[in-house]
């Protein structure tokens, strides 16, 4: 197949695309616009949500520590949950802001290798944030009611609950693993999330970054 034949075959393909596009353009325009708007909305929604939740958590824990500073100084162990949640919120804010800065600087009118590298880096950051949130969300979910109890009732549940109750909760958590696993396999979103948590998406993105580097070499 020489270049001329190739070009002719290509032209036939282009014509088919043009014909098809013209035929369905009106019908598809609104559907596609909606789909793209939804997709872009989802892309912004996650970091926006992360930023709001982390912002509220930082303000709330900051206030909590300030209000109870004397009590926390006399019993420093009681301050650990609040400080952990505060640190988590600060890191989360930092990562979300970084996401927005990188996304705002992304210009598709730049050379392909450069733009694709930025897109891949943004994707890697997003996936790593997801991994990071899931790694910390479970222990922090235990800390959160502890803090809430301290804040509302002035009782630290770590010191208040008995060991049997804690053991029952741990057992329940373990028993839920196969149930969660079954749910994860049924949902496409959950499968994607699972890929993010297990690092499959990071390795795929890193493979693409390696491919870009290789492509750039002579």
């Amino acid at each position, binding site marked *: *197949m020489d*270049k001329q034949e*190739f*070009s002719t*075959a*290509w032209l*036939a*393909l*282009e014509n*088919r*695309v*043009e014909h*098809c*596009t013209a035929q*369905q*353009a009106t019908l*598809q*325009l609104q559907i*596609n*616009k909606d*789909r*793209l708007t939804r997709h872009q909305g989802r892309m912004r929604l996650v970091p926006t949500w992360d930023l709001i939740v982390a912002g509220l958590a930082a303000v709330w824990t900051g206030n909590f520590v300030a209000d109870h500073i004397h009590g926390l100084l006399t019993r420093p162990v009681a301050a650990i949950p609040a400080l952990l949640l505060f640190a988590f919120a600060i890191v989360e804010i930092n990562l979300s802001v970084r996401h927005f800065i990188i996304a705002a600087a992304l*210009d*598709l*009118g*730049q*050379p*392909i*290798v*450069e*733009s*694709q590298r930025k*897109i891949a880096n943004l994707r890697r950051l997003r996936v790593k944030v997801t991994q990071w949130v899931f790694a910390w969300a479970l222990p922090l979910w235990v800390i959160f009611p502890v803090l809430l109890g301290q804040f509302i009732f002035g009782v630290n549940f770590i010191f208040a609950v008995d060991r049997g109750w804690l053991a029952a909760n741990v057992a329940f958590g373990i028993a839920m693993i196969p149930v969660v696993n079954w749910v994860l*396999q*049924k949902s*496409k979103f959950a*499968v*994607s999330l699972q*890929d993010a948590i297990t690092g499959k*998406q990071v390795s*795929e993105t890193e493979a*693409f970054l390696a*491919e*870009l580097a290789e*492509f*750039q*070499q*002579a």
Partner: protein
Amino acid sequence: MNTAEAAIISEQARFQQLLEEHKRLVFKVVSTYAWHSEDQQDLAQDIRLQLWRSFPRYDSARNFSTWMYQVALNTAISWSRQSKARAKRLVSGADLALLPAPIEPEDSNELYVLIQSLDELSRALLVLYIDERSHAEIGEILGLSTGNVATKISRLKARLRIEAADQN
């Protein structure tokens, strides 16, 4: 109508005109990365929308088609990678019934098979080569040196020759 609204309308008209003048470029990119009719519609729409969103950053001192190729190819490469990921998830979710029907390329079977055998970046190189862009412009679009472009085109041609020979 105030000045700001007039400026937006004038900008839209300029964009529409440039898009119309270079519309075949979108078809070239779409036909390289998407094969199903619905996918082609999706990708063409994505490219037009990204072009419009990126248009405020377009420097009019630059060649419009070069800039347009960059946006279109970037969009198509990202779209293609996302499509692959979606397809993988469908398969891993054992949801095979949702996979699209097998492709039935009509008169361009050979071309289809050849393009399919290439990765996304090589396809970008191929579309620019077939469109008879200079090595310097291909380098500018892809972010490669002119020498590197020449080497890659030569390798690509050799590879396509082997693939075509295998098919025959």
